[in-house]
């Protein structure tokens, strides 16, 4: 058989709980679902291989949001994230996370994942945020995926690797009924009927184009092409605050952080070309990113992470973490550039745009049980709307989703769906393989993402967005009418391109809807430069209604933890003031 030859075939299976995405939230969701009802069938579907998939493919250097008794309280954390996210937070989910995450840390510890402890045996938590102390280094963070995988095998979770989910199946009453997926090596279809479905499919990280021009050099794992966002949208689920883009401060040309979270607690800091600090706090908020962006444009750039002033032993310690975990090619990159942390500062830049609640707040709208607006459908991790939830949030909310989804499955039978939906989806998926002549997916993807950079990157200008929408519509027509896939691997890319274009359309639509500026650089609209609490202190929910993309306002739920008036703008004061 020729490499990646397309095989015509389709099969159907069923399970109680279907988890889609085996990165961070997914394995934990599958595990907790199975533990809740060991007799039930739990399937974990993964586009790559659960052993090494997702954002933490090579592990993680630390927890960025650990709420550990003695260092921080759930109330304090909830307050901090509410302020960092400009007030647009349903606190119940954040507060629940803050209460639950310590038990998840203990559980991860029991899996063999170790966290940094001081000489007294207490967790050595570091301060990076503006107010509280939540950053906990992970000295053996490279073992995370292995430790998780062991647990999945032990619990007898059914793992299906190399299947890309393309659409959810829904019943006539709107309830979720399962999913359709395609094998990335053979293009055979697999229909999975399920009583409940948990989406853990990561960020929409292949949206903007990195400045290096290398299409797969994205900040997020490039496999995270926003498939979950697109699937949720087409199933009728609401997506929250998509205009709150993710933009990160990264090493110039390299797609990883420099990284101030690791080096900051040791005394490193973000500096301009004069060697001066210009931001109060290195925590990644939209407000901080705006100051970063302003500094780059002001003529005082480039911006650097400065650590050459530190003791050589300290630098060595930082280096060993940065070059071993999360993005180990970071060391190789610095070596190639001849950057010695002892002598030189690290040049930084800003990343391409994406959707991700892990660092910002753009995600499928969920409540404090990880339930989406579609009955039986859950979402957790980077693609669900709980803001700033990082890796520990993915684990913690994945656990919540797993338990609740199993409870749903225990109380419901399979939902009926229209068999014609499968035939329709099969035609849609296979269409690029049926054409003899046309445009390959990489060109369609490149063009779409180049347009995202040209027209949708902040600062957001209404006229540019309208032009961008027109151009993207032209690319969509090409994608739907002329895209070709000559083998199953190209078909995988063709399907991802469709997710990317869906996300680009959603990014444009959501951004035009919110007529104010909020979240610093993430939603900086030149035509509406001010924050407008009177009209826009609300979520925006985007969804598909009667086949059309629509947006609406949704009120922010009453706070569980009150925020005093003089605390609300703490994150607006990111720029260091020069005292006379």
């Amino acid at each position, binding site marked *: 058989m020729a*490499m990646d030859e397309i095989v015509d075939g389709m099969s159907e299976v069923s399970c109680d709980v279907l988890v889609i995405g085996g990165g961070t939230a997914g394995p934990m969701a599958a595990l907790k679902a199975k533990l809740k009802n060991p007799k039930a069938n739990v399937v974990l579907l993964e586009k790559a291989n659960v052993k*090494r998939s997702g954002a933490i493919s090579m592990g993680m250097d630390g927890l960025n949001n650990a709420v550990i008794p003695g260092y921080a309280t759930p109330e304090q954390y909830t307050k901090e994230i509410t302020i960092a996210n400009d007030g647009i937070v349903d606190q119940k989910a954040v507060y629940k996370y803050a209460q639950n995450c310590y038990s998840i840390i203990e559980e991860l510890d029991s899996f063999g994942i170790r966290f940094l402890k001081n000489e007294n045996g207490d967790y050595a938590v570091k301060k990076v945020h503006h107010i509280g102390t939540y950053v906990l280094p992970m000295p053996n963070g490279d073992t995370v995926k292995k430790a998780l995988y062991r647990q999945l095998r032990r619990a007898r979770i059914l793992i299906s690797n190399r299947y890309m989910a393309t659409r959810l199946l829904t019943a006539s009453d709107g309830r979720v009924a399962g999913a359709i997926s395609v094998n990335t090596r053979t293009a055979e279809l697999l229909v999975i009927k399920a009583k409940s479905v948990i989406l853990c499919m990561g960020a929409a990280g292949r949206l903007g184009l990195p400045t290096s021009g*290398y299409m797969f*050099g994205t900040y997020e794992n490039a496999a995270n092409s926003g498939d979950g966002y697109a699937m949720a949208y087409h199933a009728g689920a609401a997506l929250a605050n998509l205009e709150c883009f993710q933009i990160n401060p990264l090493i110039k040309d*390299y797609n990883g952080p420099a990284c101030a979270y690791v080096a900051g607690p040791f005394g490193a800091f973000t500096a301009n070309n004069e060697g001066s600090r210009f931001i109060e706090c290195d925590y990644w908020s939209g407000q901080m990113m705006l100051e970063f962006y302003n500094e780059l444009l002001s003529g005082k750039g480039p911006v650097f992470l400065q650590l050459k002033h530190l003791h050589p032993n300290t630098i060595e310690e930082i280096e060993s973490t940065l070059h071993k975990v999360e993005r180990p*090619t970071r060391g*190789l990159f610095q070596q190639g550039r001849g950057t010695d942390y002892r002598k030189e500062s690290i040049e930084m830049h800003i990343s391409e745009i994406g959707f991700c609640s892990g660092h910002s707040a753009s995600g499928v709208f969920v409540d404090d049980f990880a339930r989406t607006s579609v009955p039986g459908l859950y979402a957790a991790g980077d693609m669900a709307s709980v803001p700033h939830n990082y890796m520990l949030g993915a684990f913690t909310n994945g656990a919540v989703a797993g338990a609740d989804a199993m409870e749903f499955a225990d109380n419901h039978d399979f939902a009926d769906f229209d068999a014609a939906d499968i035939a329709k989806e099969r035609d849609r998926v296979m269409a690029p393989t049926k054409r003899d002549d046309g445009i390959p997916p990489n060109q369609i993807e490149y063009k779409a993402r180049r347009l995202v950079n040209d027209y949708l990157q902040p600062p957001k200008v209404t006229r540019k967005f309208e032009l961008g929408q027109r151009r993207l519509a032209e690319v969509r027509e090409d994608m739907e009418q002329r895209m070709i896939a000559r083998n199953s691997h190209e078909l995988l890319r063709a399907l991802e391109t469709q997710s990317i274009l869906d996300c680009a359309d959603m990014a444009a639509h959501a951004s035009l809807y919110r007529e104010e500026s909020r979240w610093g650089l993430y939603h900086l609209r030149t035509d509406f430069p001010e924050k407008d609490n009177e009209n826009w202190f609300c979520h925006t929910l985007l969804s598909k209604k009667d086949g059309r993309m629509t947006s609406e306002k949704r009120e922010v739920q009453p706070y569980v933890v009150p925020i005093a008036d003089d605390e609300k703008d703490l994150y607006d004061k990111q720029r260091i003031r020069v005292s006379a």
Partner: protein
Amino acid sequence: MPLATYQTSVPVVVDDAKCIADKGCTVCVDVCPLDVLRISDMTGKAYMAYDECWYCMPCEADCPTGAVTVNIPYLLR
């Protein structure tokens, strides 16, 4: 529309002398998040078939014989 191929230098390099794919090993192909590695029909060794790399390293880290090297793609080097 006629198609042409164009040349690209790929970041993942496999040392054929060390690679044991011809003995049935598929570890690097299995773990790649972007699914860009394949076993060559001609040589029986692993190679990078698609230049779509996130240079994340599982292929290098998990290779049992140390045959795989991940380089930074030229465009961002």
